[in-house]
């Protein structure tokens, strides 16, 4: 049958399924949603602040000043316009520390997810495609990781390996990959029998190439959605680890660590724990909003 005789709807559908058109349609759907736009805006502010931290912070985040300690926020009695969100127990500027803290949160959030995606996608592809015993082993490993409260496992291993930025990233990455493995594996299993894979195989294309060129692109939208939502989780987990005292170390301010310090002074200086928490809330909420709308726009199945 010549292409010209196909009904026009088929052609339109085929055109829309191609990546650029599909992606722009998803983007339009996203852009029409006010909640998602708010999320994107907050994210732009947070990412911008993190990138430009050394140039936009009013003070050095580590600079102490005993005369200025416990300065309340500017609108409260005794506030000082030079320290808009107040100062902590050793007189460091809270706003500057929050802006610098955004760097750690975003860095850990994104890199931990990259680690998880790399592990999860690889294992999911292998397990789905090879099947058999490897598949059973992998699913058992997923079962085992689900038996631990994830935070507890991360906590124990970060402490045992020695707290550092790299350890936190690796441990969070290594405890969060199973969702990708499951999604990719399911996708591989359903695609394995499809005609176009069969055709590719009949043409003599090797397994690895089939996986990378034909199977992997089909899992793309699920992975985008899952990883967006995991960034939000990883930021919360990093904050929890910092709060519990096994975070990325004491040299650089993190939101969780600021809240932990603030807990001790909660009765004298409410602003100490409040503002870093609001920073976490805003960032995570923004990512969740974007992730949720992305899910609606890209992939109705998950």
């Amino acid at each position, binding site marked *: 049958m010549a292409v010209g005789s196909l009904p026009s709807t088929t052609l339109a559908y085929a055109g829309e399924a191609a990546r650029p058109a599909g992606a722009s349609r998803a983007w339009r759907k996203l852009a029409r949603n006010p909640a998602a736009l708010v999320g994107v805006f907050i994210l732009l502010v947070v990412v911008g602040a993190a990138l430009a931290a050394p140039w936009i912070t009013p003070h050095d985040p580590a600079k102490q000043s005993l005369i200025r300690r416990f300065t309340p926020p500017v609108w409260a009695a005794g506030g000082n316009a030079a320290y808009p969100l107040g100062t902590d127990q050793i007189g460091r500027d809270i706003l500057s520390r929050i802006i610098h803290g955004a760097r750690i949160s975003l860095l850990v959030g994104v890199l931990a997810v990259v680690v998880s995606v790399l592990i999860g996608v690889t294992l999911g592809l292998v397990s789905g495609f090879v099947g058999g015993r490897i598949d059973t082993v992998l699913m058992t490993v997923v079962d085992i990781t*689900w*038996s631990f409260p994830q935070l*507890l496992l991360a*906590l124990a291993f970060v*402490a045992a390996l020695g707290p550092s930025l790299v350890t936190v990233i690796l441990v969070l990455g290594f405890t969060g990959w199973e969702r990708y493995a499951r999604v990719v594996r399911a996708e591989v299993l359903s695609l394995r029998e499809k005609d176009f894979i069969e055709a590719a195989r009949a043409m003599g294309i090797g397994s690895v190439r089939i996986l990378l060129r034909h199977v992997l692109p089909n899992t793309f939208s699920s992975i985008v959605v899952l990883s967006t939502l995991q960034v939000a989780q990883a930021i919360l987990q990093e904050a929890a680890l910092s709060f519990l*005292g096994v975070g990325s170390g004491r040299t650089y301010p993190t939101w969780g660590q600021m809240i932990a310090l603030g807990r001790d002074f909660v009765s004298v200086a*409410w602003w100490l724990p409040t503002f870093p*928490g609001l920073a*976490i809330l805003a960032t995570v909420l923004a990512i969740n909003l974007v992730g949720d709308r992305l899910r609606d726009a890209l992939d109705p199945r998950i």
Partner: protein
Amino acid sequence: MTAFLLRRLARLAVVIIGVSLVTFAILHASGDPVSLIMPEAPESDRVVLRATLGLHDPLPIQFARFVGNAAVGNFGRSFFHRVPAFGLVLERMPTTLTLTLLSMALALVVALPVGIYGAVRRGRAVDQVATGTVFLGQSMPVFWTGIMLILLFSVQWRLLPVSGWESWASVVLPTATLSTFTTPLLLRIVRSSMLDVIGLDYVRTARAKGLSEWLVICRHALKNAALPLVTVTGLQFGLLLGGAVITETVFAVPGVGRLIVTALRQLDFPVVQAGVFMLAMIVVSVNFLVDVLYLYLNPQIRMR
């Protein structure tokens, strides 16, 4: 059905071995335990200690010994307290379980009615407020929620104690904090599984019979919506225990979570291992129970 149970039991055994392996790995990830136990001792003493602890043996043998000891509740002595680590964990287990179960109950008490109501009156004010709160709740760090509650109820209004676990009043804030951790997710599941069921033919039939709306919802729809809820509630248990670790630290509740966090700061690994192992065992058993319960609730599996 017996075959299903046997398969589940076999998997349970494998998972328990896996859990032991991971717990075993915690100590070995920390490097040399001997330098943690006696940091300033001369090399000759260390060699003796290494030999008594069996650290010269090959790893598989050490692991086998660890599993054998763990099976009888022997995780060694706490480096710090010099008493058996398992006892320390057992003493604090009731507190953690009480906190977790109370929070789970509170979460269900909130999530069930609100979720059902939201699904029935989809898109109305209550539903929209609930959905918005779910988003907010899922984006808040638990420890921060706890501190904000302290700020309001203990510092500002002086209604409830800042920390501890002695009186009923001191139980309120930790329970409320921990339940904000699970309520959003439960609410979401209740709402979506109710929505799945509400549109089905048999619900319409029940309505057509002239049954009152709430009878239809509670007797007919809820029964079928309960299946995913049971699974999720079970899976939530692990998450809740993780949240309990944080909540106990914020409110200085003397539970297993706080014990583990303190032990980690002191690099007291026997206590960490005993605590992590016990909490994981609870999650494993709850998951197993959920599977068995699922079997009873779902006739499709029961028949096979």
